[in-house]
């Protein structure tokens, strides 16, 4: 597989300059906490974790906060009989607890963002189909609103985010206005493996920020469609170019394992994450959703948070039983490049555990091997 990658492409991901950036990539502490259930222990555990990070107040007081949720796939998917929140989705109580603590810390307004599968329906309607009650989330804090970011939504135009250094795949990405109209951006992710990118954590969660009106299979050639249709084939397989965009190297490999990690690294460099929260209380192993063959339930009973998405994801990867320094050909990146390595090379953050301070529960005590 790697033989299909040209020297130019290799350099674009691993060049000497990038290697230099990796060595100096910033670090930030990561907090790990055990939390067995979504019950009464959840809120105080999260609060303690945020305190261990230095407190939320200095980050969010008086600010507009945008939270990218992980509600991947259609709401009609279940792994076996398990509700989505105990497998592939965030749990509504994790969302509510986060909202409560953000409001308590003085957040002025909080927007919950997701790009639901192939629809412009309001997120509230989308989650109703999974038997969620949106009011339980909306009432968790004042001034909370949902926005479907799979299309223009309430905005008048898309916001353009340039990737520092020109990007692996694209120089810039157009996103729903909510990703710009915020002071603080939070990625609330789920601790999971991923069929395309090995793991899906706070960085990969942002892949879902891209609107399918531009990056979807059903997008027109030159300009965005009004409503999203289908998935993100142009990113995955490069079967076509996104509406109005041409990738940096139109001859780059048409492999999802090459393309998607680079798009994700681009996105987190272009739209920085201020707070990464990774929820691994009840989740799934073997893939990101029930559509992946062989997935199974797993109960790590762990929460991870940090102010740097790469360091947080590196610690999360280690807790899952993988080496965050691993790359293509080594679990969990057997068929893909490491998003951690690519983001590190862009200078987003370090994946080197030796350079990351872990607060709270040590990795070895939180370790839950996702693969036997």
């Amino acid at each position, binding site marked *: 597989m790697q033989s299909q990658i040209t020297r130019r492409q290799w350099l674009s991901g691993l060049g000497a300059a990038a290697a230099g950036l990796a060595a100096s990539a910033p670090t930030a502490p990561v907090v790990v906490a055990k939390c067995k259930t979504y019950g009464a222990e959840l809120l105080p555990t999260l609060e303690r974790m945020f305190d261990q990070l230095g407190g939320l107040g200095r980050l969010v007081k008086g600010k507009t906060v945008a939270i990218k949720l992980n509600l991947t796939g259609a709401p*009609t998917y279940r792994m076996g009989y398990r509700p989505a929140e105990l497998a592939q989705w965030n749990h509504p109580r994790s969302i509510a607890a986060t909202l409560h603590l953000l409001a308590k810390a003085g957040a002025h307004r909080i927007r919950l963002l997701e790009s639901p*599968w192939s*629809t412009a329906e*309001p997120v509230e309607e989308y989650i*109703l*189909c999974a*038997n969620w009650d949106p009011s339980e989330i909306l009432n968790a804090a004042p001034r909370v609103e949902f926005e479907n970011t799979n299309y223009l939504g*309430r905005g008048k135009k898309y916001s353009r985010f340039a990737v520092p250094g020109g990007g692996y795949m694209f120089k810039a990405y157009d996103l729903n206005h909510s990703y710009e109209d915020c002071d603080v951006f939070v990625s609330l992710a789920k601790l999971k493996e991923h069929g395309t990118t090995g793991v899906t954590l706070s960085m990969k969660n942002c892949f879902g920020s891209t609107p399918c009106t531009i990056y979807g299979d059903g997008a027109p050639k030159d300009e965005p469609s009004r409503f999203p249709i*289908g998935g993100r084939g142009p990113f995955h397989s490069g079967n076509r170019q996104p509406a109005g965009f041409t990738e940096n190297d139109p001859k780059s490999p048409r492999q999802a394992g090459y393309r998607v990690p680079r798009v994700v690294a681009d996105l987190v460099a272009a739209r920085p994450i201020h707070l990464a929260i990774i929820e691994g209380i009840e989740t799934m192993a073997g893939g990101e959703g029930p559509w992946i063959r062989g997935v199974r339930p797993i109960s790590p009973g762990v929460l991870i948070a940090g102010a740097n998405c790469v360091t947080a994801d590196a610690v999360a990867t280690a807790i899952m039983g993988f080496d965050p320094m691993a790359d293509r050909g080594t679990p969990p990146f057997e068929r893909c490049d490491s998003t951690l390595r690519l983001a590190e090379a862009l200078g987003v953050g370090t994946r080197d555990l030796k350079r990351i301070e872990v607060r709270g529960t040590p990795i070895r005590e939180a370790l839950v091997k996702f693969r036997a």
Partner: protein
Amino acid sequence: MSEMTDWVPLRWPSQWQDPALLRLLEQTPINCLVIAGQHSNLKPLIERARARGLALAAPEVEAQGGLPAIPWTTRAKVSWTASAPVLAISENLWPGIPAPSGGGADAGPTGVPWVDSNGWFIQLARTRAPSKTFWLAYDPPPKAQFLRAESYLLAAADAETYGARWVISMDGRLRAGLVAKDTQAVETWKKLATALSFFKARRQWNQFRPLNVMAVISDFAGPNEEVSHELLNLAARRPLPIRILEKSRAVKATFEGLKAIVYPDQQPPATELQKKLLAFARNGGLLIAGPKWPGPEGAPAPGDAYERFQVRSVGKGRLATSKEDLLDPYLLVMDSHLLLSHRHDLLHFFNAGSTNSYYTASPDGKKALVQIVNYSMRPAGHPISFTTQERYRAARMWTFESAAPVPLEVQAAGGGSDVHLPPVGVYAAIELEK
């Protein structure tokens, strides 16, 4: 001989002239032979069938030689007021997931596989002529390489689930296999007979009333036919159960239990119906209509963020009028569901993308029935489950494969129940008890 409405019809193959082939009907519920076209060479067979007490019938257009004629028309030409107790309808779809020329399954606009089903049409037919028994004629696709037994089970289930009969029709391979007593063909035939017996033993389910919270009122004809018919077809796929109300009878119809009514017809309704619909909205309902709705009353509703509709507060309810003509049934059903909100969904299905369902309640309201027809004809990767808005204390599942029902796990879910199903092949009926 049984009543005509109890007949289970088989389109007798013209190639089958040997009376001995009537043996195939033994231990099956098939009790009516439909003889099409010239049948002078079938005389011995017809005599033997009569002697066995089998009913004989011919399509009206082809009736010859004194066989009772069944009114037999295309969908577009059905005489809903005909006096005959049985109406046979042709030009239907062989049910299933159509395979495109490029392979794989067609993705429909709903994001789930497109399925060919006659379910919505049967519901419409039963609304338009409630006292009739409907036979639906559809033949195996001529280009099909090989039809598995499940294809025949699906053909039966697609009609019977919704209260109609399929005029059993075989492909050449099955016909030849049965004559030759081929093991696989005989097995297919036995399975089909079991499925037909299953439905025949449960005809009382046809008296159950459909459960729904949204109605569509239309004349379902002329310039309104295309949109109204496709609206019903697409609603079934969401799934959004619809109460079908014919415009000419809507003034006298009850709106009890409804939360929304869609009026998709191009022409505004007559004054009396208009008043009744507005009263429905004033009492808290949602009325959805086209742009020609006369002089929409009420103030724009707060938070009106609906792209294609103007929503007004009317009394305790809402009136949503589209900004443009209602020409796209896909957008109409999507918008209607959204305007109503998934909050009012009676059922939420999981891992059921290739299925359609029919949710009904017994006349005394003590039992409900969820019939599931699986157009992929094989269990999904993950088992199907569904959540009901209403609370049930017990559930059991019937299938063709098992003589006895299987008790199901029922868990409380909010105010309703979460019901977990074992793998579903072609068909399952879940009886729910309060």
